[in-house]
C-alpha cells in the first residue's frame, strides 16, 4: 500500500551530476566538511563552507528536500543565537554590546552563537547532500568494496528503514488511543502509545532476524550485489579535490588560528548584532506559539 509519510531524510531520485557521482567522493566531502567545520570557529570561513554546500545542493536539484530537513533545525538554531548572545559559552569577562532591561547582549555571545550555527549547517550540508543524492544500496555496495563488513552495512540500512515504519506505527497507535477518548496534546499524551509502539518494534525486529536467518544471511563467503557502482575519472578527481581542500583548509585554519579568532573583534556593526538577536528571539517565540497552537487543536 503506497502511503504518504512524513519521512525526514531520504534519497530524492534525480539525474544530476551529484546523483551520478560515486558515493565515496561524496562521503569524503561529507567527512571533510565536518573536519573543517570543527577546525575553526571563524564565521567567515564557516560561511564560505556553508555557501559552497548550498551551491552543491542547489546544483543537485534537491533544494526543497533540504529545506524540509533543515526546518527541523530552524527553531534550535534560533535559540542558539538568542541564548548564546545572552550567556556566551566563553570564559568571562564578556564584552557587552547592548542591553534591553535585564538582558545584555555580548560580543562573545554573537560570535559563539553565529559560529555554532554556521558550524552546524556547514558541517551537515554535505552529509545531507550525500543522503539526498545517493541510493542507500549504492552507498553500502561502495562501502563494502572498501572492506566495511556486509553485516554492518545491513545493520545501518535496516535501522534506517525502521524509522518510517515506526513513525507509521506511532500514528496508528496514537489514533487508536484517541478513539478511546484520549486528548492528543503534549508529550504526556504520547506516553500510553510508547508501549504498543516499542512492543511492536521489538516483535518486528525479532521476526526480521528470523526471516534473515532463513534466507542464509549468516552464510560465509563474499556477497554479491544487484546494483553495480563504478568509479570514473570524474569521481576520482572530485574525491581528490575533497581531500586536498580538507587538508589545506584545516592546516591553514590551524596555522592562522590567532588571526581567525574574532571573539573580541567586532566584525559586525552593533546594530546588526542587536537586530539579529531580536529577530531570532521574536521568530523563536512565534514558532513556539504556532507549534503549541497546532498541538492544542489536534
Amino acid at each position, binding site marked *: *500500500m*503506497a502511503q*504518504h509519510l512524513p519521512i525526514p531524510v531520504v534519497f530524492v531520485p534525480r539525474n544530476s551530476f551529484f546523483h551520478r557521482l560515486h558515493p565515496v567522493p561524496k562521503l569524503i566531502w561529507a567527512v571533510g566538511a565536518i573536519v573543517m567545520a570543527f577546525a575553526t570557529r571563524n564565521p567567515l570561513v564557516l560561511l564560505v563552507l556553508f555557501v559552497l554546500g548550498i551551491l552543491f545542493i542547489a546544483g543537485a536539484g534537491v533544494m526543497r528536500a533540504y529545506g524540509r530537513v533543515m526546518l527541523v533545525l530552524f527553531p534550535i538554531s534560533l535559540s542558539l543565537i538568542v541564548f548564546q548572545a545572552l550567556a556566551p559559552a566563553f570564559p568571562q569577562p564578556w564584552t557587552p554590546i547592548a542591553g534591553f532591561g535585564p538582558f545584555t547582549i555580548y560580543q562573545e555571545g554573537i560570535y559563539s552563537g553565529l559560529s555554532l550555527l554556521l558550524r552546524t549547517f556547514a558541517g551537515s550540508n554535505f552529509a545531507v547532500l550525500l543522503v539526498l543524492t545517493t541510493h542507500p544500496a549504492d552507498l553500502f555496495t561502495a562501502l563494502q568494496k572498501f572492506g566495511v563488513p556486509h553485516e554492518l552495512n545491513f545493520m545501518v540500512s535496516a535501522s534506517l528503514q525502521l524509522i518510517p515504519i515506526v513513525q507509521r*506505527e506511532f500514528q*496508528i*497507535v496514537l*489514533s*487508536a*488511543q*484517541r*478513539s*478511546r*477518548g*484520549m*486528548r*492528543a496534546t503534549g508529550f504526556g499524551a504520547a506516553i*500510553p*502509545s*510508547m*508501549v*504498543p509502539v516499542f*512492543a*511492536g518494534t521489538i516483535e518486528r525486529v525479532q521476526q526480521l532476524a528470523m526471516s534473515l536467518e532463513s534466507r542464509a544471511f549468516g552464510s560465509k563467503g563474499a556477497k554479491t550485489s544487484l546494483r553495480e557502482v563504478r568509479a570514473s575519472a570524474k569521481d576520482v578527481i572530485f574525491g581528490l579535490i575533497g581531500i586536498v581542500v580538507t587538508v589545506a583548509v584545516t592546516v591553514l585554519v590551524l596555522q592562522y588560528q590567532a588571526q581567525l579568532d574574532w571573539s573580541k573583534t567586532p566584525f559586525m556593526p552593533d546594530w546588526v548584532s542587536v537586530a539579529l538577536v531580536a529577530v531570532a528571539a521574536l521568530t523563536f517565540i512565534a514558532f513556539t506559539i504556532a507549534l503549541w497552537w497546532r498541538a492544542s487543536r*489536534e
Partner: protein
Amino acid sequence: MTTPPIVCDALGHEYAGGVLALKPTTLTIQPGEVLGVVGQNGSGKTTLVKHFNGLLRPTSGRLLINGEDARPRPVHDLARHVGYVFQNPNHQLFATTVEAELRFGPTNLGLTPETVAERVQQATSFFGIEKLLTSHPYRLAFPLRKLVAMASVYAMGPDVFVLDEPTTGQDHAGSNMVRKLIERLREQGKTVVIVSHDMALIAEVADRVLALWAAEVIASGSPRAIFAEDRVMQRTKLYPPQITQFARRWAPASTRPLPLTVAEAAAAVLGEER
C-alpha cells in the same frame, strides 16, 4: 422517528499526495442496523469507516453524527458516540492489566469513578472476561486480546461500533465468538459497522451490505440481494459464502430465497424432499 446515528452527505476523501481513496458517497446508517462493508484490498473500506469517529475528515461533503455536523468535534469527543475497534489489538492495548485497559476509555470521557467502575463491570460481564481482569494484555492469546480490545471500547458505552476486520487471524472458535458478540450488540440495540473480507460472517450477521470497488460504493442491499448479483460479484472479485455458491450451482434457476448459511440450505433441501 429516531435520528440516524451516521449520515454521509456526499462524503469524499483524498489523501495528501492526491490519492482519491473515496469518491463522494451518500449513505444513511439506521439506528440498530448491522452494516457490512466489503470490497477488495485498497477499495476504500477503512477510509470510509475512519470518518465515523473523526480519525479522517472528509475532504469533500459532510458527515453527520446523530444529526449534527461532525466537523468541529475532535476524535475524543466523537469517541463517546462511535467506538472504533482497530484490526490489530496490539495497536490499542498498552496498560499492564486488563482492568486498567478497560478503565482507560471511560476515564478519558471524564466520568465519575463510580460510573467508570460500573462501565468496567458491564464490559467485563458482557464479554465474559472476569477471569482475565488481572492479566497483562500482552500475555493473552490473540483472540482474547482482540476480545479485550473490543471490551475496552464497549466500556465507553458508544451507540455505534466500528469493527475493522474483526475475524482476520482468528480460528473458528475465535470468529464464532465475534459472531455471538455482534448478535448481542444487535440485541442491545447498538449500531454495528463491520469491515470484513469474511463473506460468511457478513452473510450471517449483516442487515445490509455495502460493496466498494475502486473508491466507490457500487452496490448496497441485503446480503441475499448483493450475493445474488453476478455483476457486483464479478466487479468486486468477491465470492459469496461457499454454501451460497453451492446452492446456486445446484439449483441455478431457483426462485427460492438464496441460502446464505448451511442451516438455511439444509432447511431448503429438507423442505423440497418433504
